[in-house]
């Protein structure tokens, strides 16, 4: 684990915090696109869209060919996976915790056959 890894992930979340950039990522998930193709649906100027693309590129979420004439943008799924990973891990922790709370609430309200000892003692 390196500082660089943390900074990359931080940059990924910064990039995804903006709705326009999230929409660009969603568009690129369907396939590569040029700056012109990306700018059209957002009613944005080319410099405006370029600013967003630079942020996305720095975050590692997208890459652009250095050589091709129209420099199509390409989504880098690994960077997106890492960002989604944190949210999914925490969602899972809370879901499992709430599964247990649900069972516990049933126990202490006497809606199951085996109420837990500690809970009965507590109330």
């Amino acid at each position, binding site marked *: 684990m390196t500082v660089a890894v943390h900074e990359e992930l*931080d940059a990924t979340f910064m990039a995804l915090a903006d709705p326009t950039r999230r929409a660009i990522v969603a568009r690129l998930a369907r396939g590569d696109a040029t700056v012109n193709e990306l700018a059209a649906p957002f009613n944005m100027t080319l410099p405006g869209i370029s600013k967003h693309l630079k942020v996305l590129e720095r975050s590692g979420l997208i890459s652009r060919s250095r050589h091709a004439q129209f420099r199509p943008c390409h989504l880098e799924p690994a960077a997106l996976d890492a960002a989604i990973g944190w*949210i999914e*891990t925490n*969602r899972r922790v809370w879901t*499992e*915790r*709430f599964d*247990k709370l649900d069972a516990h609430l049933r126990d202490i309200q006497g809606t199951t056959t085996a109420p837990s000892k*500690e809970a009965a003692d507590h109330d």
Partner: protein
Amino acid sequence: MTSHRAAPAELNLTRIFEAPRELVFRCMITPEHLTHFWGPAGTSAPLEHIRVDPRPGGVFETVMVNDADGSTYPTRAVYAEVTAPERLVWTEVHSGMTMAATFVDLGDARTEVRIRQTNVPEAMLSPDAQAGFRTSLDKFAAYLRSLS
């Protein structure tokens, strides 16, 4: 990590419980209740390590113990807001991560709990950290299913 710079990632989660709001709220701030559910699958939260002082500035400390190898995950937090039985906000001391729990009375002894987790530190975003946690949970998911 010396920096706790937050990334703008957040988690929102909602769950409905078949219990009155006062009871659900009490479960979230009472060690004897927390010990039953605070540790996610594959872990437990021993009663003797839970400290709760439910008032702004009060501590909220838990230790999750991995059922498999006994490794421990202590978490120290401080309450920022305690409004019984409606809302709890606490911030983890080491990470700066903030959790807000809102309790909504749906009537008919049903309660909706909304969790909002914000201010995620960079360190939490490490794929290594996530992978380790996931592996330990996966390993014992089947065992835990057999208990329920």
